[in-house]
């Protein structure tokens, strides 16, 4: 799996050398942001088995945290990443407390409500969030480059592309290591049988909160990148459809698989653009692809490939 990871990274880094089209790079940057979100949601839904339908809220919280800190206090992007992650993570834990006693379908409904509440709050807290018009003039990231001094990312595509590739790589490593640790195993135990997990000595309450916090924090990082790239954020970028989309990526790639989250995000992030040629049938084809996937390989793309003996070993539980 390691080989495939490094290979994918090399290919990803080479893409801007192959295509000069800013459009291609932008689409891939968008897919990369989706990958970050899918990796984060996978910690909650895939690793720990907690169905979450309001994940876009953490993306929004990260974006607004960086935007507000930047606009009011002048916090630069790199410094803003941390509070964006921390704020989203905190909200993830805080949401986790009241939903501790609900599972499955009920958890899905409560988290769906949470996602909507956050979006509506950002729409209505006009004095702070600018309401439906959102926040404007958020600073782009800057970077010091030898010989050129401090360079603003501005509205160019390539720097954001590499930023997203770097963050996705980092988060992937973090997720793989979390999954293979004792905490990751405890999450898997909770996912499979919460009672048996408790009777094996696992503090299920603490670990579920930890998973929700980690997952949300990753969403917060993605949010800050999004805000810095766009320079403008409005509440309608963080709607329910986004939550569903990210969940679809996680499931399509293979629930609980780190590689699956990335593959799912690449497929669903790029597919709508590929289908642009057949504009009217775009959503129809999109839906058909989803249905076909779930019929043919319900364990997701990476799950199916593994069962056929690809990527090392036919059966690796909670695999990366």
């Amino acid at each position, binding site marked *: 799996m390691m080989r495939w990871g490094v290979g994918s990274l090399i290919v990803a880094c080479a893409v801007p050398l192959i295509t000069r089209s800013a459009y291609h790079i932008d689409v891939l940057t968008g897919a990369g942001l989706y990958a970050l979100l899918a990796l984060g949601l996978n910690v909650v839904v895939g690793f720990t088995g907690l169905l979450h339908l309001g994940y876009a809220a953490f993306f929004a919280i990260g974006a607004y945290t960086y935007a507000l800190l930047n606009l009011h206090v002048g916090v630069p992007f790199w410094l803003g990443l941390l509070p964006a992650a921390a704020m989203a993570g905190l909200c993830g834990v805080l949401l986790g407390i009241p939903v501790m006693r609900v599972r499955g379908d009920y958890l899905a409904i409560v988290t769906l409500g949470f996602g909507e509440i956050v979006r509506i709050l950002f729409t209505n807290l006009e004095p702070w969030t600018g309401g439906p018009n959102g926040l404007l003039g958020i600073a782009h990231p800057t970077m010091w480059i030898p010989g050129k001094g401090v360079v603003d990312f501005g509205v160019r595509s390539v720097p954001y592309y590499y930023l997203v590739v770097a963050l996705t790589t980092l988060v992937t490593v973090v997720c793989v290591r979390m999954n293979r640790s*004792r905490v990751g195993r405890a999450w*898997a135990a909770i996912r499979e049988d919460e009672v048996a997990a*408790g*009777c094996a000595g*696992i503090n299920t309450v603490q670990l579920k909160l930890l998973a929700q916090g*980690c997952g949300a924090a990753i969403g917060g990082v993605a949010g800050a990148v999004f805000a810095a790239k766009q320079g403008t954020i409005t509440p309608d970028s963080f709607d329910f459809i986004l939550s569903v989309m990210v969940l679809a990526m996680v499931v399509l790639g293979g629930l609980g698989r780190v590689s699956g989250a990335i593959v799912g995000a690449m497929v669903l992030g790029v597919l709508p653009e590929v289908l642009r040629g057949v504009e009217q049938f775009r959503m129809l084809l999109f839906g058909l692809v989803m249905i076909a996937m779930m019929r043919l390989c319900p364990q997701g793309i990476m799950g199916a490939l593994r069962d056929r003996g690809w990527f090392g070993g036919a*059966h690796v*539980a909670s695999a990366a």
Partner: protein
Amino acid sequence: MSPPLLEINRLTKRFGGVVALSDVTVTVAPHEIIGLIGPNGAGKTTLFNCITGLLRPEEGTMAFGHETKERLVGLAAHEIVQCGIARTFQNIRLFAHLTVLEHVLIGTYIRTHTGLVSAVLRTREARHEERWARDRARGLVEEFGLSRWASTPAVSLPFGLQRRVELARAMAVEPELLLLDEPAAGLNPTEKQELLSVMQRLRSHGLTICVIDHDMRFVMPVSDRVVVLDYGQVIAEGPPSRVQNDPRVIEAYLGKA
């Protein structure tokens, strides 16, 4: 006789109008094997569920430990495990998709301390502890004769082996008291014999065992003491030979003549 390891005092558990356990008083001495028997619905599993924190009794107390007594009522399931009590389940509860080795590794959870940050940074301590846990888990997998299936998903194994996986997972927490809920159910005679010798071996290493069975013949030979439950009450208690001939026990199992 040494002071008891587990003292259950006047425990009562009701489900609505049904009294599942009524005034149950049982003591378990260290290094003892206690057989808990009784007809179906007598409250045996309910008693285990109360001890392990899955159910909360309405009345009564439970104290566990050698010198310092932990009061068990009100503790969460994982806290009770930390006190030193592990269990298996009547209807085997394994983690679907996880391998045999992973099951046992999950059992070592409370014996390890690596947090998320050190795990992600792969600190020296984290790597050292992970190696320790894997060695320990492999040792247990071998001890319970599961080495061949270490990387097989546990739920795909035959029933008898699944029981062993559950037992190995419970032993990985290094308990002082092991609660076995009908471990012999569904086993063939050979497997039952193996289970008995495993229990005796564990006891000789200092473990205290409480074993449920509704089949008296299984627990009698291995038990130091037998407690008989019927309709949520303790109706007899004592050495197997005496309990076997107790008229109330015969009545509970066979009905009045």
